[in-house]
């Protein structure tokens, strides 16, 4: 069967910009590398798979589609070329076929390193809103690439990587591995619970959804994480995450599912105290969560059960009936503050820090 070599420029996760960088800055070298690899494997055809919305690079054959961490898998590419969702296939003797040709894949970075005189890693450095790519020779310590002074945490390798403490940065060097692909720096202002929840949401969004463990694992993990910054966590949630994440890691179908649990597990291990504080004390050491009017409560000793606040709430977030202490459903509260003004008793207040004891079910005024 004839072979089609696809240079996939869509396999980066949201933390890495290496493919776009190489196309913009090292196109000739990349093309040379792709050509070299095509000759090596005897491919008759070459195609460049670009991320939808990116510009054309005037390459002989260009296809466009969505970026996905599984787009380094030939079958995932074939699926997209046929108009389907990208999903990988890993099987003995399996050949991904497109238009009668066996599909082979390489990334721009691999192509570059095939053709360039010196092997380089194209490290994406993310700090706040800023992202830059540095071309660094293989074997360079990451501490020489990135200045992590004053940082609180570092995420190496993006969605498929892991969290480390800044002091450990020197232990990692650039190379073929996932970890040195991107370095994301979190300053002291970052709440690691929020950071991890955001990361897990991105992990969920980027799952190809092919296998149960990754599809539903990412959903479960992001849902459990979403509960933490808003005080809805349950006591066993950390244990639950530590129970399922290692099994997902071992049992998932492809490298994406086998790697993303590392980010979660490393965060849980390195920042255990922060997670604990959120769940047990409903407090945020970084001062990000449960803050800035995040929580409105009705003081049980002041509420007269008049119902004025129920009428004032546009989000039906207040539950109560006449002569019963009213309660704000924190999941539904949109923090507009209308109820505060509606209460003549000044029973509704903005609350910061650990919440006082509040009724969990309808309780008669004076009986709490």
């Amino acid at each position, binding site marked *: 069967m004839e072979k089609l070599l696809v240079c996939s420029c869509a396999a980066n996760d949201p933390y890495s910009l290496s493919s776009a960088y190489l196309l913009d800055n090292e196109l000739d070298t990349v093309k040379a590398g792709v050509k070299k690899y095509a000759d090596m494997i005897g491919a008759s055809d070459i195609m460049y798979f670009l991320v939808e919305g990116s510009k054309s690079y005037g390459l002989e054959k260009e296809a466009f589609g969505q970026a996905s961490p599984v787009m380094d898998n030939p079958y995932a590419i074939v699926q997209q070329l046929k*108009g389907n969702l990208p999903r990988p296939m890993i099987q003995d003797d399996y050949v991904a076929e497109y238009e009668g040709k066996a599909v082979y894949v390489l990334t721009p970075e691999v192509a570059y390193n095939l053709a360039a005189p010196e092997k380089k890693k194209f490290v994406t450095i993310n700090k706040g809103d800023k992202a830059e790519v540095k071309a660094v020779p293989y074997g360079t310590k990451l501490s020489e690439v990135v200045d992590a002074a004053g940082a609180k945490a570092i995420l190496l390798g993006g969605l498929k990587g892991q969290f480390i403490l800044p002091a450990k940065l020197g232990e990692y060097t650039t190379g073929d591995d996932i970890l040195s692909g991107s370095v994301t720096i979190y300053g002291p202002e970052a709440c690691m619970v929020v950071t991890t929840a955001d990361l897990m949401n991105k992990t969920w969004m980027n799952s190809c959804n092919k296998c149960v463990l990754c599809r539903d694992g990412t959903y479960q993990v992001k849902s459990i994480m979403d509960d933490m910054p808003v005080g809805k966590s349950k006591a066993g949630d950390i244990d639950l995450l530590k129970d399922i994440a290692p099994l997902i890691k071992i049992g998932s179908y492809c490298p994406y599912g086998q790697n993303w649990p590392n980010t979660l597990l490393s965060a849980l291990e390195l920042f255990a105290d922060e997670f604990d504080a959120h769940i047990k004390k409903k407090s945020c050491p970084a001062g990000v969560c449960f803050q800035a009017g995040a929580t409105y409560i009705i003081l049980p000793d002041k509420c007269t059960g008049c119902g004025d606040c129920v009428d004032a709430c546009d989000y039906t977030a207040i539950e109560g009936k006449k002569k019963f202490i009213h309660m704000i459903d924190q999941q539904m509260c949109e923090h507009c503050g209308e109820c505060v003004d509606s209460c003549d008793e000044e029973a509704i207040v903005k609350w910061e820090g650990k919440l006082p004891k509040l009724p969990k079910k309808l309780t008669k005024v004076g009986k709490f």
Partner: protein
Amino acid sequence: MAEVKLMIDGRQIVADASKTVLEAALDNGIYIPHLCYHENLHPNGGCRLCVVKQEGVDGVITSCSTKVQEGMVITTKDELAEKIRKLSCDFMFKTHPSECTGCPKYGRCLLASISQYVGDTGRALRELKLRVTADETNPLMLHEMYRCILCGRCVRACGELRGVGALKFAKVDGRMRVVIDGDSLADADCRFCGACVEVCPTGSIRDKVDVFRDDIPREQALIPCSAECPAHISIPEYIRAIYEGDYSKSVGIIREKVPFPHALGLVCNNRCENNCKHKHLNSSLSIRNLKRFAAEHDEDKIWLDNYLKVAPRTGKKVAVIGGGACGLTAGYYLNKKGHDVTVFESKKIPGGHMTSGMPEYRIPTQAVLDEVKVIEDSGVKIVCNSPIKNAAELKKDYDAVLVAIGTSIGKKLGYLNKDNLPQTYSALELLQAQRLNQEIDLGQTVCIIGGGNVAFDAAGTLLRMKKTVNVVCLEKDASQASPDERDTALEEGANLFDSHSNEAIIGENGRVTGLQVHKINSFYFHPETRALVEDAIPDSTYIIPCDSIVFAAGQVTGLTDEFGLELNRFGYPIDPKTGKSEYTTSVEGVFAAGDVITGTRFLIDAIAGGRDVASLMDQYLGGDGVIDEQLVERTADPFIGTIDNFASIERHEMDIRPAEERKEDFAPVSTGFTCEQGTCEASRCLQCDLRLQIAGPKFWNDYAGAEGEEVNA
């Protein structure tokens, strides 16, 4: 391919090197839970239930997508693998409705079965209710995707197995979902083959209620046309052969069940079309007309050599009384089974109703004789002009006798003909006279009494004999007849006197001169006495002038006790053991089949009866009774691909010759499908039989070595 040896759960297994670990285990009765794997589909690896431990490999391996290798040591009940399976089950049940008993798939659900085997951990995971409603808008298939656990079997079956791709994955609200690749299944060029239903392990994609009968075995019910056919002709297979342009193969497939493809193609009452799944899209396949098309385009007769092959002679002699469809069919199969068969036919040519009881223009004599010739060529002896007076007497000279004389005597209502005028005939007498070139004194104007199909057969025949035809019947609009046959005759010029009741046949000088009738508003037959009760219009009596009368008022066997068999009061042979008309009679070794035991039915019923009785008689004569045969090779490619706007291709009707032209001769009313019409009509077939190629669901307790109880304990 080479074989490899491996160990699975401490057992030495020898497996073909092309097998996967999962296949090797299942083949040897070692059950590994699996959900997205299906033996007819490419492995997917998505459900993570088939993970097993391989010695020397970290973690687990996916057994459905890992090939066996020499020396592998596999543990299926590894602790880690089982933990992963449980987690996968946990996850799936957080999206799948937890209440099983309300699900139509309850008891046949693969997911439920697997979760029973794998067990539950009770983890406090988050529920995710899939916000998707049931979709009942498509014909035949029902989508309730809130039950979907995304195994992807349907998408693979539709894409890989069928080459259709009407179903695909899409991400909706961040989660993958199986969706239709278009506004509707029809819009997605779905072929409505049902493969998706067949492979769905849950109740997500199902056949709509009432598409298939549930009173017969499933493998029969899935092919409604064949199930409805009394002879169970493999209809989708012969239609497929037509589509492929292999008309001879098509006829071969038909002939595996019936010796009269052409005759059936012309006059069968096509009950096969009643439940054709295509009627849920627009209308049923034109199955009968396709059969005619195949029969009339079969030039190569590739089935003939096999058809004429007969078993070694048994030395047993069989007499068949009646050379109609039933007798000839039974004769063919009995001869095939090695018995010497002689068919005694009372008329001058064989064929029964086919050659003398229906109009020539519906079923040409030559077409029937050609098919009878094949039966003769196979070794059946047919003796014409040989009425048999007594079946019991005949039995003395034969090892077995079959009575298949049909109902060949037309009823005449004697009370209308008090003067015993001679120009009164039954429809059968008329048809027989016309077809066998016998004299019949009709005069110019004929009144036909009766309003069923036979009345209009008589009308069409008389019109072609250049007679003036009046059809007189009780029913408003002759509603007993099929509208097509009624309208065909009316177009050709028959006069209809509907809502008319007959009083008497009027005559003068020994000749019929008219039919005295009156008009009625309505009528019914008394439920107990069967007597006619009518609401007559007062003073409406008048005489329709005519020269002869034809009765189309039903048929009887005409048998009397002289025939040597015990009869019921209507003249039908009975088996005294049950008191009913059956294949067996009062004389051992004398059998009966066809209209003579069922009353007047259709051609296909006579043929089916002939098959059944042949099998029974073969057993009586010491044979195994197996009359099934394969005459032609066939392959059914499951990869059917798409056809543009498949669901909206309209049913083809044969072109009918104009009334002015066709009433001038006895040639068929239609010349049949053109090749283009035939091929296109055949392309509409939903190929329901392809579904039987797909392996049905197998549960863990279906595997010999499955030890679920131990795992759960």
